[in-house]
């Protein structure tokens, strides 16, 4: 739940998702769900020469279980919002 809230704060930011099959996709985070499935918009594959499979793809849905990393923007997110979300969750549980 913690990271689900975290990713909800990141919607609209540009992230690079690296999958377990070494494919890296850069795009704007459109949405995320409780399983950390990710929807990206306006994607660009990082190494297009090596992975031409997605040249015509604009938006994609990525199953959470195939994600290895998500590279986040260095300005990250407002950490205070994350703190409060975590505290609310801790109180609720």
């Amino acid at each position, binding site marked *: *739940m*913690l*990271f689900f809230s*975290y990713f909800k704060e990141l919607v609209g930011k540009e992230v690079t998702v690296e999958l*377990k099959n070494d494919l890296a996709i850069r795009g704007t985070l459109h949405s995320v769900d409780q399983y*950390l499935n990710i929807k990206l918009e306006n994607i660009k594959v990082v190494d297009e020469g090596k992975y031409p499979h997605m040249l015509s793809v604009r938006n994609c849905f990525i199953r*959470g*279980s195939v*994600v*290895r*990393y*998500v*590279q*986040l*923007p*260095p300005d*990250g997110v407002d*950490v205070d919002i994350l*703190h409060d979300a*975590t*505290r609310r*969750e*801790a109180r609720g*549980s």
Partner: protein
Amino acid sequence: MGCARIRYCSWALPFLFYSSLPRSVKWRKKQGLVEGGHSMASEEESTVKEPLDLIRLSLDERIYVKLRSDRELRGKLHISIRVWESYGGYHVVNHGGNVFPRGLLSNLLWLKWAYDQHLNMILGDVEEIITTVEIDDETYEEIVRTTKRTVPFLFVRGDGVILVSPPLRTA
């Protein structure tokens, strides 16, 4: 009370101020500490109950993570401290299913960790090391190659994590 804790977690210097507050005898008894006795063993038991407690005690922030597919990460586990005003006491904090040790976290500190029970984590200033072994066709000797890469801010999905530890001194 303060001395034993300093010995156990000597890297927690910034937080010693908070743990050296005066404590009543009644509070000590509730904590299970014997007044004046050497309670190092019982403190260790109460402060590292589960494997995840070891990560919580990595207060110097830098950690080493071993992942599947021969990858390693060295990075800073994002931590922040909040003064915890109104809980008023020494009871256990339940945060996302993890139990915080009462001794280490006094009623003035709330350490929030950027990881969860799946070991999903957020690391900053990360160095990734990928190790590959190539076998030369002719000589059949193994060439061990490592590639390094740095990423400023990284979310790591927990199902790829094998182990988490304080950074190795040889690094």
